[in-house]
């Protein structure tokens, strides 16, 4: 489902190139929840961005749902991000001018011509909010939601398009313990339903739920542990 082979990525710092990923190999299959841990600045978010097609400036081979990202034109890559990949960010990244349900509707409204009418998109967005337990908050702007509620809206948005891959960057980083555990439980459920879930985190409670935990150190992935998480 997600496959990275020999992925290298570096950033320019003046005249120097700073390598961040040095030949990363990774496979995440359907129904698998994989956690990547590592200290701040180790390149975890960068790994997620290249795996999700947000950053195309890398070397190596990445395929998602069988599609080689480097060979996809920009429009196809955008379509893949829209329909196949769901993103969840630490900072929630909700659009402040939109209500909760409108934020969830965004992937549907970004579809190309011939997609669902707005009424149907809204109806599915409401369903997604119900699924994450926010039925009563559809009209609320993000500013009026708690951190946990915002992250659940972000997850509902990521799940709106029924993606086959979920990429989450520190999804519990800004949440209290209870909210964080709800999110982890949801991710485990999603993986149980056949979704490939790749979570970048530095929190142990997330890694405990993962089928595999990999550590990103000096630009390389090491297998840290293999365990069945307590929620899986």
């Amino acid at each position, binding site marked *: 489902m997600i496959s990275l082979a020999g992925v290298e990525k570096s950033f320019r710092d003046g005249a120097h190139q700073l390598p961040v990923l040095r030949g990363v190999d990774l496979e995440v299959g359907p129904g698998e929840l994989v956690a990547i841990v590592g200290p701040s600045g180790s390149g975890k978010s960068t790994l997620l961005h*290249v795996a*999700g097609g947000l950053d195309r400036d890398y070397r190596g081979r990445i395929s998602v749902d069988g599609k080689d990202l480097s060979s996809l034109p920009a429009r196809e890559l955008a*379509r893949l991000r829209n329909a196949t990949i769901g993103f969840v960010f630490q900072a929630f990244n909700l659009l402040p001018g939109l209500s909760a349900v409108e934020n969830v509707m965004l992937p549907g*409204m*970004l579809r190309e011509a011939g997609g669902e009418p707005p009424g149907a998109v809204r109806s599915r967005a409401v369903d997604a909010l119900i699924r994450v337990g926010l039925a009563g908050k559809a009209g609320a702007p993000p500013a009026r939601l708690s951190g946990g509620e915002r992250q659940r809206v972000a997850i509902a948005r990521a799940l709106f398009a029924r993606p086959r891959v979920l990429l989450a960057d520190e999804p519990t980083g800004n949440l209290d313990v209870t909210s964080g555990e709800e999110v982890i439980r949801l991710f485990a459920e999603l993986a149980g339903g056949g979704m490939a879930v790749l979570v970048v985190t530095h929190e142990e409670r997330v890694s405990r739920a993962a089928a595999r935990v990999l550590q990103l150190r000096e630009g390389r992935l090491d297998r840290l542990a293999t365990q069945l998480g307590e929620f899986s």
Partner: protein
Amino acid sequence: MSARGLVWIARARIRADRRGALLDAAAACAGAAALVFFLALGLGVSAAARHMFPAEARLVEVVPPAVSLGGLLGGGRLDDPAVARLGAIPGVSAAWPRLMLRVPVAAPQAPPGMASSWPPGMTLQIPVVGLAPGMVEKDVGAGQRFADPGPGATIPVLLSGRLLEVYDKTIAPAWSLPRLPPGVSLLGLEMPVRIGLSIVPGKQEREVHDGRVRLVGLSDRVPMYVMAIPLETARRLHADYGKDPWYSQVTLLARRPDDVPAVADAVRRMGFNVDESERAAAERVGAVVSVTTGALVFLAVVMCVLAALAIARSLSASVRGRAREIAILQALGATPSDVHRVVLLEGGMIGLAGGIAGTLLAIALSLAADRLALSTLPDFPFRPGTFFAFPPWLPALGLVAPALAAVLGALAPAAAAARIEPARTLG
């Protein structure tokens, strides 16, 4: 992204920054209002000036030269052969001779029913011109005839419609006389005249005959303070009184306005002059109106450009301030091209909203200005009912111009938005 999605997202972005959008729309509104108001004013005043100084673009007025070498160079007298030659000039579709009647005509009493408007003992000397019926045939009233009736019969006449306007707005109020009913209802009005009678000492003819004239139409092709009779009647009277038969003027009708300069050149080569006094007056007035309108429209265009710059500046700031939102859109499936189009559409929608408001504001302002002007200005001749003209294209321009200006203003911010790298921004 579908067009529906584009509009939805652009609207959502505008809603999210209502205050900024409102300020931008206000700038576009000011530009549109100024553009529509000043253009409507210019068009309205131009129409009023054309009504005041009518000059038909296809007419060329030919007059004899001030100093003539006569037949030697083929110029000089305006007689029938000269009229034929003038009519044969390429680009001329008709040649209508005029004969200024050199036999004096005076009205010693008022038309029936208008005696109260006639000072006792007044005799009105009337300048008369003979006109070719073809020149005024469109202005002759229904059921009326403008042709020589023969000796002793009532002579059909035409007056300038503008003369009635001057009477109504200037003479009647000054002399406390009743105003005339609308022009067409005066048709058929008869008045006794004395042919050969002059109030100027030494100008009276030896023979003075009683006659009658009947108004058969009103025409802007009749000079303002002159009464027009059929050309044949004028020629007959000249023959009766032993006057020269030469025409005083020939009016040429060019096929197209573009033909006029070439026709005028040909006329001059034939040894005649072209009387451009009316045309020149109309052109002077037109030029003044055009220059004034042009200056005001330039000002309005500058305001539109400033609005576009304000929108450009505001959208640039918005793109910088909301880079993260744009990156999120890209993460959720928007292409850089989608982002580009969303920002352009955002600018266009703001400009269009400003254009709608500005156009409505301009129409409201024009109504208020008309009301104020008509209630304060005196009722002078040819005073228009409105100083503004709104041809259908003008409101459309009021909507399109600010929207287009806003889209142009949004070009640079849209390009900047499309260059946002989601990974770098979200990281």
